[in-house]
């Protein structure tokens, strides 16, 4: 068995940070190497070095036994290395064909782009590896899963035999993940070697042949997937024992906090996306809303927080109707919101952390007096919250955009939890976060519940729903299929409900 790729002693320093510290990695021919690590562990930096986007300060790259110099992506492509970036590198307004041939265009009559020949090649690649795609479709019209196929085709079109996939499953639905894994199998059978970057433990164990773990820019070690357990991997990644199961006492539900009656909501395209929903959240319990993304959960949360007008129905908080209130009124009546898209709706990335930490109450004492902001109060509030919520940041004056995803989410949690709240609405609270941060956020949510706050958690990750919820509502096509006691269901049963199928009463339930 030969090694197709070896990285030896790769070191990369950014101002103030040692992103990669003497990292060694070996990729065997025809195998999948999983590179595991938390966000900020240096995985992406390492791969960008390999792909020529960054220059290493020290170290060697050895491809097929020969040392190569990679200064720019062209060098990597020539060495047979191809990369599927986490954020797709596709031009949305161009066709699949145009995206694939960009940089290595085929021409006819000496100068004109030869779309047909490229489309023909794409067809061949599609057939060979099971990557079906319409070469003439525009990228912006394609779902995320298909866009990823185009990225893989781009790499194969350049005859790469070493493929780097950076967090390929982060943006995919469970079904699309299945599809991707099948594609990886085909690629391996065709003799390709793959580096698979991820922070999701279960994926690693199901696809990898070798696992290498990075932490804080250092190689922690390698492990055979057969010997790996989620607990072991998590400990390696985080550097301490991690509790993958949320520890919690049975809920002590009290009076009703939020009550929703017959709610109908239209989205911005005027489609009825929430279609007659009723439920209640009581103080001291977590109601989990499960469902495949896009079944009305987003609009439900927007309506509850006043961001989208409701069509009809009633929403009351502690008995008072709030469905005609403005977002600020709703927020002032004690609703905390952890939004789905933290970078767009939860934070102002170009604002410093201290300002982000007072966005909900900036107009009130102690942050404002008359027309002026009180810097001193803002800074001391920020210092305190950063310490209390363990936000890892050089100081409170850096922009929120410079933090890692987990720390950004901690800033939001700190802000929302630092004021008195009656109800917490958390939408996809741990999407894209690493194990350590997930553990932290989950603990905080349960702590709020135990303090007697009503909690509504919306998530498309079933594991998360099961870990947090006391009761589970399953949404499908804008309606609630059923509301179940969390102790009395299993994943399969919920999975069927999420697909819109009512399992007969006899099967499934424990």
């Amino acid at each position, binding site marked *: 068995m030969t090694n197709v790729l070896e990285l030896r002693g790769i070191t990369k320093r950014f101002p103030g940070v040692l992103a990669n510290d003497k990292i060694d990695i070996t990729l065997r021919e025809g195998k999948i190497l999983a590179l595991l690590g938390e966000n900020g562990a240096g995985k992406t930096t390492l791969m960008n070095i390999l792909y020529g986007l960054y220059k290493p300060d020290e170290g060697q790259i050895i491809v097929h036994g020969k040392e190569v110099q990679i200064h720019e992506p062209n060098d990597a492509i020539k060495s047979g290395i191809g990369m599927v970036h986490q954020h797709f590198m596709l031009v949305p307004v161009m066709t699949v064909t145009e995206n694939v041939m*960009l940089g290595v265009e085929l021409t006819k009559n000496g100068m004109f782009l030869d779309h047909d020949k490229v489309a023909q090649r794409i067809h061949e690649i599609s057939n060979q590896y099971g990557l079906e795609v319409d070469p003439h479709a525009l990228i912006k019209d394609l779902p995320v899963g298909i866009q990823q196929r185009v990225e893989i085709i781009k790499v194969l079109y350049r005859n790469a035999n070493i493929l780097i996939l950076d967090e390929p499953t982060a943006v995919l639905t469970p079904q699309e993940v299945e599809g991707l894994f099948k594609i990886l199998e085909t690629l391996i059978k065709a003799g390709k070697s793959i580096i698979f970057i991820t922070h999701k433990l279960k994926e690693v164990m199901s696809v990898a042949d070798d696992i290498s773990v990075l932490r804080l820019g250092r190689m922690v070690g390698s492990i055979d997937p057969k010997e790996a357990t989620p607990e072991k991997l998590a400990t390696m990644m985080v550097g301490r024992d991690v509790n993958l199961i949320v520890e919690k006492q049975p809920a002590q539900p009290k009076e009703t906090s939020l009550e929703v009656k017959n709610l109908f909501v239209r989205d911005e395209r005027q489609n009825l996306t929430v279609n007659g929903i009723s439920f209640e959240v009581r103080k001291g319990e977590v109601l989990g809303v499960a469902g495949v993304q896009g079944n009305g959960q987003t609009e439900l949360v927007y309506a509850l927080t006043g961001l989208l007008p409701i069509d009809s129905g009633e929403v009351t908080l502690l008995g008072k109707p709030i469905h005609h209130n403005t977002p600020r009124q709703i927020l002032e009546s004690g609703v905390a919101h952890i939004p789905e898209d933290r970078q767009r709706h939860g934070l102002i990335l170009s604002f410093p952390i201290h300002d982000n930490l007072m966005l909900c109450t900036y107009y009130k004492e102690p942050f404002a007096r008359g027309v002026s902001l009180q810097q001193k109060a803002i800074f001391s509030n920020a210092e305190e919250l950063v310490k209390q919520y363990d936000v890892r940041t050089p100081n409170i004056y850096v922009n929120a955009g410079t933090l890692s995803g987990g720390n950004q989410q901690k800033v939001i949690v700190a802000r929302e939890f630092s004021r008195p709240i009656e109800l917490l609405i958390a939408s996809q609270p741990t999407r894209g976060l690493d194990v350590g941060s997930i553990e932290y956020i989950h603990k905080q949510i349960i702590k709020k519940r135990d303090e007697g706050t009503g909690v509504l958690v919306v998530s498309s990750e079933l594991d998360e729903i099961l870990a947090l919820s006391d009761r589970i509502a399953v949404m499908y096509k804008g309606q609630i299929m059923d509301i179940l006691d969390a102790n009395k269901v299993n994943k399969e049963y919920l999975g069927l409900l999420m697909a819109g199928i009512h399992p007969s009463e006899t099967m499934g339930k424990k």
Partner: protein
Amino acid sequence: MTNTKTLITPASAKRAQILYGVVLIVLGLLIYLLFVRTTEAGVTTTFGLNLANAQAIKVPDLVVPAQATVLAMAAIAIFVGAYQLARGIPSTSTLIGVIAVTFIIAFLTWSAQDKSFSLTGMLSSSLVRATPIALAALCGVISERSAVINIGIEGIMLMAAQVAVVTATVSGNLYVGLVSAIIVGGLVAAFHAYLVIHFKVDQTISSVAINIIGTGTTSFISSRFLQKATDTLNNSGTFPIISIPVLSKIPVLGPVLFENNIIVYLMLLLVVIMNIVIFYTPWGLRTRAVGEHPKAADTLGVNVYLVRYVNVIIGGMIAGLGGAYFTIGSVGRFDEVMTSGKGFIGMAAMIFGKWNPIGAFTSSLIFGFADSLQVKLQILKVPIPSEFLLMAPYIVTMIILTGVVGRAIPPAADGKPYEK
């Protein structure tokens, strides 16, 4: 909240349908009220189709009964409007076309009633007047397709115009002037490119500076030197009209398209070439990719900076050609601030033409048409102040820029410096 806002919702499509229908019907009524009632019955309008000195085979002039023609235009507008309200016409450009054509025909017939109006002459001068606007627009298109904003076109054209006339006068050869203008345009654009690509200076500020420098230096040189030595420095003559054999004999089209000077021909050629380059060649594909998603292009080994430098410099050379039009292409001398905003109008034409060479050219024609219409109408002594006529195309531009008539989407990375 989500990014669905930019999409056309069914509700807004319905609104647009009603809006266009109402606009058409109101237009029909306006034509009736303003023109039909003030046109005398039995009077005819003559549209001249021949130019006095042209090579074209003579054709009889078009003589139409004035009142009936105007009435027909009103009827067409109202009918199309009613059909739009009832059924809906999917093509926005058809609707805009109907609005423009009915109004213009009605207006011309009315204003030239009982007189003769040279249609061919006006079309010909439209194209000539559109030439510098189109060249400015092409400069904008090629720069912005690679995501570099250049609003310094006005300044580049002024400098090129001056250099062209001085070099041509001194050397006694108009082509020396033409080449010098193109080189100067390229150099100034290269300076802009160096500032915004290498130093990542704000693109708007850099190009505003070019405009100020352009106006300042040319005005200074003009008043300090050129006005004192007009004959030796500022009197070049202009490019002759070249009649293309055979083609110039075609009635109407011949004099309009095939009896022009070299700059007009170069402009027409550039429109075609640029359209082919941008949409059908590897360089164009790379340019568009760099303008939309430079990082994607970079990861595929495309040199983002190189593409931007080359496009901005080529754009500057095209603007330089546009500058040459003002002096050696039309009057043969330099006057202070003689470009009079044509560079900026070119930018509007670029946006109206959706960053597309052919679109930019077509929009330039609209401005050229309005410009020449205004002149002709003054000759016809129409009882409308010419200032109002001059305003019309700008008002149309503003309506278009607000996005009522189909929003134009610039390249996604337009104006943003690229950081590796």
